[in-house]
C-alpha cells in the first residue's frame, strides 16, 4: 500500500527505455520515502517480462497479459491502472511523457481526480506548507517542469490527492541497474477482472514503427550545427567529431531549413529537447527557440566566429574561431590525448 508505481510502456515484448529510467528514479524516491517500488507491465505475450524490470530494484511487478493489450489503446490500459490503483492506493505514479504516457496519464488522473504534471524535468521529495490553512504536508512529490514556453520553471505539488502523478520525457532521468538478481514478487493478474470487454472499441488497423535512427534525446554528448556550418558537407565534420566522442549530431532550425541536416535532428522548441552533459554548438547563433531545447545541458561550448552570438551568453566555453578551423583541431587533439 502507498507505494511508488511506474507504468512500464511496452513496445512488443520490450520495456521502453523511458520506463527503465523511471524505475531507477522510482527506486530512489521509494528509498527516500521508505516504501516499495512496483511496476506495471501491460501488453501481449509478456512471459518473462519481469526479467527486464526486476534488476532496477522493483519489489512487485504487476503483469497484465492479454491479446487486446498490444498495440496500446487508451481504454483498456486506463481501466487497468484505475482499478489497480483503487486497490493498491499508490502515493506516486510515474510514466513516460511519450505518446502513450501523455494519452494514458490524463485519463487515469481524470478518473481518479488526482493531479498530474506533464513533462517533469526533476522529481524530488519535500515538505509543503499550506500557509492559508495552516497545514504542513510531509514528503510530497515535487514535480518540477518548465512552463510558459520554457520561460519559467514551476514546482508543482498535489497536497491532498493520490496518487501524485507525473510524466517524464525519455532521456531526462538516468537508468541504472540496482542488482541483476534483485528479488521481487511477480503478480500475474486476470485481465478480465480489470478490463471490461467494452473497452476494446478502438481498433488499430495499421501500424508502422521505425527504429529510431539516432538517440539524440538521450545522448550524453550532443554536437549541434547551425547555419554557420555552411553546407551539408560542413556537417560531415560534425559527424566525424561525433564518432570520436560517441556523441549524436543535432542541428538548429536554420541549418535544417537550409537542407544541411535532416529534420528529425532539429533541436529546439519545435524539435527535440536535449539534456546532454556536454553540448557543442557549432556555428549556431542561438535563437531563444533553439536555446529552449538545450539550455539544460551541463556544459555548453560555443564555436563561433561572431563574438557577439547570443548563444555565447549561456556558454561555459566560447571558442572564438571558424568551425572549419576549430573542429578539425578538436578531432585531432581528442585523438592525441584520449586513452
Amino acid at each position: 500500500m502507498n507505494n511508488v508505481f511506474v507504468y512500464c510502456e511496452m513496445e512488443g515484448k520490450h520495456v521502453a527505455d523511458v520506463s527503465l529510467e523511471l524505475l531507477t528514479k522510482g527506486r530512489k524516491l521509494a528509498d527516500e520515502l521508505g516504501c516499495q517500488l512496483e511496476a506495471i507491465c501491460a501488453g501481449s505475450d509478456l512471459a518473462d517480462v519481469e526479467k527486464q524490470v526486476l534488476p532496477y530494484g522493483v519489489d512487485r511487478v504487476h503483469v497484465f497479459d492479454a491479446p487486446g493489450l498490444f498495440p496500446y489503446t487508451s481504454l483498456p490500459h486506463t481501466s487497468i491502472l484505475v482499478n489497480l490503483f483503487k486497490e493498491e492506493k499508490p502515493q506516486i505514479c510515474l510514466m513516460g511523457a511519450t505518446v502513450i504516457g501523455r494519452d494514458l496519464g490524463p485519463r487515469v488522473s481524470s478518473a481518479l481526480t488526482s493531479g498530474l504534471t506533464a513533462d517533469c524535468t526533476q522529481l524530488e521529495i519535500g515538505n509543503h506548507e499550506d500557509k492559508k490553512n495552516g497545514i504542513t504536508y510531509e514528503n510530497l512529490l515535487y514535480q518540477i517542469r518548465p512552463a510558459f514556453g520554457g520561460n519559467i520553471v514551476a514546482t508543482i505539488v498535489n497536497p491532498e490527492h493520490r496518487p501524485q502523478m507525473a510524466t517524464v520525457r525519455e532521456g531526462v532521468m538516468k537508468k541504472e541497474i540496482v542488482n541483476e538478481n534483485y528479488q521481487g514478487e511477480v503478480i500475474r493478474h486476470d485481465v478480465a477482472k480489470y478490463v471490461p470487454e467494452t473497452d476494446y472499441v478502438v481498433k488499430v488497423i495499421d501500424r508502422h514503427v521505425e527504429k529510431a535512427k539516432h538517440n539524440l534525446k538521450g545522448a550524453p554528448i550532443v554536437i549541434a550545427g547551425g547555419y554557420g556550418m555552411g553546407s551539408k558537407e560542413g556537417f560531415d565534420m560534425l559527424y566525424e567529431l561525433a564518432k570520436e566522442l560517441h556523441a549524436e549530431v543535432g542541428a538548429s532550425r536554420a541549418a535544417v531549413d537550409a537542407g544541411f541536416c535532416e529534420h528529425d535532428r532539429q533541436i529546439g522548441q519545435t524539435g527535440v529537447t536535449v539534456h546532454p552533459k556536454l553540448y557543442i554548438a557549432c556555428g549556431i547563433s542561438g535563437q531563444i527557440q533553439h536555446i529552449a531545447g538545450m539550455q539544460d545541458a551541463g556544459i555548453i561550448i560555443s564555436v563561433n566566429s561572431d563574438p557577439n552570438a547570443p548563444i555565447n551568453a549561456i556558454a561555459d566555453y566560447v571558442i572564438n574561431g571558424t568551425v572549419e578551423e576549430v573542429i578539425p583541431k578538436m578531432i585531432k587533439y581528442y585523438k592525441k590525448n584520449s586513452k
Partner: protein
Amino acid sequence: MSLKIVVLAKQVPDTRNVGKDAMNADGTINRAALPAIFNPEDLNALEQALRLKDTHPGSTVTILTMGPGRAAEIIREGLYRGADNGYLLTDRAFAGADTLATSYALATAIRKIGEYDIIIGGRQAIDGDTAQVGPQVAEKLGLPQVTYVEEIQQVADGRIRVKRHIDGGVETVEAPLPIVLTVNGSAAPCRPRNAKLVMKYKRALGGQEKAALEKDGVALAYADLYEKRPYLNLVEWSVADVNGDTKQCGLSGSPTKVKKIENIVFQAKESKTITGSDADVENLIVELLANHTIG
C-alpha cells in the same frame, strides 16, 4: 451522415514570440507584451472539423472555449473560418483551474450542448504544453479517444478512421462515434478567414465585451443590429448555466498546486573565451578529458 462537431479551442499568450520586452525588470512575465492568440494546434483541429463539415452536408461545427470575456475572440475567429456557433465558458469560479478542473468545466458544458458526434481539440496548448485536457474530457464523458491525430480519413456508419502519430511511427485506428480527438500540429494548417464570413460576424460580441465598451463610455455601434441578428450575440455561460459544481471548478477543483515559480532569465554564466589556436583547443580538450566530460 451529418455530424455534430464540438471544437475545443483556447486563447493563449503567444509564448513562441517571446521578445526582449517579454520579461519585466524584476524577472516576472510581462503579459502585455505577449499577444493573445488562437492556440495553434486548436486551429489544426478546427480545420479537421471544417473538412468534415465540407464533406458531410448538414454538419455543424460549434466552438467551445473557456476564458475571460475577451476570449470571445476565439469564437469570432472560428466563425470567420466556417464554424456555425460557439460558447464561451466564463466565470470567476473557473479562474485558476488546472487541467483537471478545466476538463470538468468543459465536460459539463459539452453535456449542456447535448448532442455531439466528435469532440476535437488541439493536442496541447502552447502556454502549458500538457496535452491533458483532451483525454481528461474524454474520461469525464466516458468516451473513447484518439490523441496525436494527423488526419481524419473517413467517417461512415457511425465509425471513424484516423491516422495518428505514435513514438517513432504512425498508426491507423478505427473507432465508434462519439469520440474525442486531439490533433497534432503537423496536421493540415487551418484555412484562412473567409472574407464574407468576416463581414457577417465582425460585429459579433460577447456580453462582457459589450459591457466593457459601455463602461468605457463608448456607445455600441449599430446597437439595433444585435436584436435583428441574434447570431451577433456570442453566448456566454457561467458555472450555473452549465449546472457546474463550483467546488470542482477553478482553483478549488484543482488537485495540483503551484508551489514555486522561477523565472528563467538568460544571464551570462561565467564563461571562458578562448581562441581557435592549437594550444587553446588542445588545453580545452585536455581539461574536458581530465574532468570526465568526454571519455
